[in-house]
């Protein structure tokens, strides 16, 4: 009977081999798929037990923290709620979802994973996992001021420290409450970094950058500003259909003369325009520390499918793009980056929200930024642009930003979005003080009736800049 017993043992070995193969399948080969299975709530349950780090504003105000919720679990709360919801985001295990800084910097906020070697007996020293605090650049007073200046209107305010890329204000209406992210009727869409707006005449700063820095023009070059002017076979008008004789580029920016900048753009050419746009960050997701799926890349978009066009696509109407129309879909953040570059002598610092991660005993474990994104133009070009933009504020379309002692420079934008109902996007991008800029801003107000940028957006921008400078920024 010994041969059958040997056979029997062989069969048993095969059966046990199957068990080990299947166990390896779940523990190793299919582990990742199982962990990402939508029915798998283990990650969420593990999350309940983690005391996440706090999210802290630049003045130490706590924007997000974990409170004990019984049974060794923690509940995340956001004291400032809607004011910072869009950038702070949320980490909500109940919903199994997260957003904003909570998502982007989860690695720090949730604490570092253990290495597999120490895990046989669990975390020997610590007991529970405690995340790192995330310190941010956000300024609660300026952010609150932005909200009250928007006064309920749909729009965005972005303020950047030009030399570092630190975002002091990043606010849009409408917002949502990140304590209840799934509340009925609320939207997490963040206009400041996701909205698709025509930038209007604020884009003339980009065209002027290409014109000046390429050496094709100087601020004193003269161009005839006839209106209407045929551009790509279709007549283009100046505001009020006013015709100008030979005017300097400075004057054309000051009075925001469309037909001049259309010609400038066409003379500079699409390749040069594309080069400078890319340096400013167009056609690329913003280098901001928010999840990519919560941001939008600015640029010309194909109206039929919404996709970004190639920057040199022959679908682009170069003349109209040069004055901020055509199919440009641009975020307020992108235009703030343009202003910031001009303010920082031609260098674009990557905009960022987080400055450092600090562990629970107060040691800084990671620093973020500042980091240069690109060198867009010569310092001398930036200086010329600042002078031209000073003229806009002092004697042009942006005079309502000309506050006593602020010494702002800027550019207005009024982008028609609905001719029939007279609806415009009102824009202002600017910087102050012009001699040594400390802050750069972009303000955008959506669907304003006869919404001239100089009337609606410039005063908001001026107030925000004034507040931030008075705070010592």
């Amino acid at each position: 009977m010994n041969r059958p017993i040997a056979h029997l043992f062989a069969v048993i070995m095969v059966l046990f081999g199957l068990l080990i193969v299947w166990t390896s399948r779940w523990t190793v080969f299919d582990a990742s798929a199982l962990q990402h299975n939508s029915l798998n709530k283990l990650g969420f349950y593990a999350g309940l037990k983690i005391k996440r780090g706090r999210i802290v504003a630049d003045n130490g105000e706590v924007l997000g923290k974990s409170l004990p919720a019984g049974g060794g679990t923690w509940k995340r709360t956001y004291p400032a709620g809607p004011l910072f919801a869009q950038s702070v985001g949320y980490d909500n295990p109940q919903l199994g979802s997260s957003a904003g800084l909570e998502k982007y910097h989860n690695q720090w906020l949730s604490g570092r994973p253990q290495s597999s070697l120490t895990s046989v007996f669990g975390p020997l020293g610590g007991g529970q996992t405690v995340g790192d605090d995330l310190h941010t650049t956000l300024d609660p007073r300026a952010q609150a001021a932005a909200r009250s200046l928007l006064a309920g209107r749909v729009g965005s305010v972005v303020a950047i420290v030009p030399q570092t890329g630190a975002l002091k204000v990043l606010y849009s209406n409408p917002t949502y409450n990140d304590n209840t992210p799934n509340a009925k009727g609320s939207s997490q869409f963040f206009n400041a970094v996701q909205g698709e707006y025509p930038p209007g005449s604020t884009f003339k700063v980009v065209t002027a950058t290409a014109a000046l820095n390429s050496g094709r023009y100087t601020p004193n070059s003269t161009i005839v500003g006839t209106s209407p002017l045929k551009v790509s076979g279709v007549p283009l008008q100046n505001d009020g259909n006013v015709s100008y004789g030979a005017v300097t580029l400075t004057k054309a920016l000051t009075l925001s003369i469309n037909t001049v900048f259309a010609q400038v753009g066409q003379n500079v050419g699409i390749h040069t325009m594309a080069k400078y746009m890319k340096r400013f960050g167009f056609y690329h997701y913003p280098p901001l520390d928010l999840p990519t799926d919560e941001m939008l890349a600015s640029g010309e978009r194909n109206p039929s499918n919404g996709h970004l066009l190639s920057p040199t696509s022959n679908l682009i109407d170069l003349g109209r793009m040069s004055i901020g129309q055509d199919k440009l879909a641009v975020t307020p953040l992108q235009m703030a980056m343009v202003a910031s570059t001009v303010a920082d002598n031609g260098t674009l610092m990557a905009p960022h929200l987080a400055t450092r991660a600090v562990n629970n005993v107060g040691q800084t474990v990671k620093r973020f930024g500042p980091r240069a994104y690109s060198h867009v133009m010569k310092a001398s070009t930036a200086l010329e642009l600042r002078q031209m933009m000073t003229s806009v504020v002092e004697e042009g379309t942006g005079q309502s930003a000309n506050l006593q002692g602020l010494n702002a420079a800027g550019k207005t934008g009024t982008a028609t979005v609905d001719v029939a109902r007279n609806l415009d996007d009102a824009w202002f991008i600017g910087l102050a003080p012009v001699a040594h800029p400390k802050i750069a801003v972009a303000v955008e107000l959506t669907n304003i009736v006869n919404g001239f940028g100089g009337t609606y957006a410039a005063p908001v921008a001026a107030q925000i800049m004034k507040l931030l400078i008075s705070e010592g920024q």
Partner: protein
Amino acid sequence: MRARNRELIGLVPASLLVTAGFAGVFIQRSNQLSNISLTYGAIFLGLCLIAHIFIRVTLPHADPYMFPLVAVLACFGLVMVYRIDSTLARQQAEWFVIGLVLFIGTIVAFRDYRKLEQYRYVIMVVSLVILVLPRIPGVGQYTAGAYLAVKVPGLGGFQPEEFAKIGLVIFLASYLRDTRQVLATGGRRFLGVSFPPIKHLGPIVVIWGVAMGIMVLLSDMGSSLMLYGGLLAMLYVATGRISFVLVGLIAFALGAWYLGTHISHVHARVEDWLHTFDPRVYAPKAGLGSFQVANGLFAQAQGGLFGQGFGQAILTVPGSNPPAYVIPAASTDMIFTVITDELGLFGSAALLLTYLILVGRGLKAAVMSTDSFSTLLATGLSAVVALQVFVIVGGVTRVIPLTGVTLPFVSYGGSSIVANFVLVAFLLLVSDRARRQARA
């Protein structure tokens, strides 16, 4: 080295394991290394030493590795049950002691186990009767869609199938000793395989009937598969005819297929197995669904190669009160997934290898035995242990549909631990006799 000294040394890993295991759980619980873990280690080492001395006196020639392997499994089980629920672990420790008492009792009572042959029909009838006890109204307990336990005042649930499996193996070993010569001869060849005459298919029909009966009456696919497989293995070893196995497997497959499509509980288990991650199966409108299987797999995925460490597996929803179970039956049916989660692929593979070695030692005793009854008894008992491990581990790793049988010596459960200690006592008895004769 003499066999008993090897056994003694073999107990060292078991006591180290229980000490280190409890220490690990303690550190995890309270961040401190309490000397209670040493106390526990010492107590279990003491108990194992008593059993060892008893074996040394009564069964000096018995296989020296079997008892240490069982001690390792039982101690490991205690640590895991303690990690899951310390109250259950206290009861499990009591059952461990009762199991050792019955282990010693079995060795004393059946010193000459071959006298069991005289009572083979009584044993068979008693086994079959206690098997169907759970189905009798007022006596049985209905748990999770199957009739698995009998209510015993003061003891809680008693699972007769754990004992019935031993009784049926004893009966078949005895029956086949008498009839194997007849069964092994005659018949006609078909496709190169020699098939026995129809009249010799009697035993297989009876075994098949018992297995199907368990499925129909108790809705218990796991026990059915384990018993049927074990008895079929004995039939094969007794006759050397692969045709019995082929006929047997086909008959079982047909029966299981028919019942799987006609008994709703069995059918649901098959659906859970085939479509584990289908949301409709995962959380059906009625019944349990594949929630348990799926979450067992999710837990195993957390384990990876080395595991998350003791106490790291999530068994209940954190903060839920009363506890909402993420892994239902973590201390019994699902204990293998907790082991895999916390000790990883290496930990669970080591556990499976331990079982494989134990089964191998049991089969070695079968090979060394000189009489058919002993050989068949050791074969049957070893095969039943192997198949029990396969049924439950295969169930939680989705090799086969999940049905509730215990992981021998490791799962929480009084009947299981006591019955398996009795089973090992018989294996030691067979092995002692075989090795004594081999030396003589």
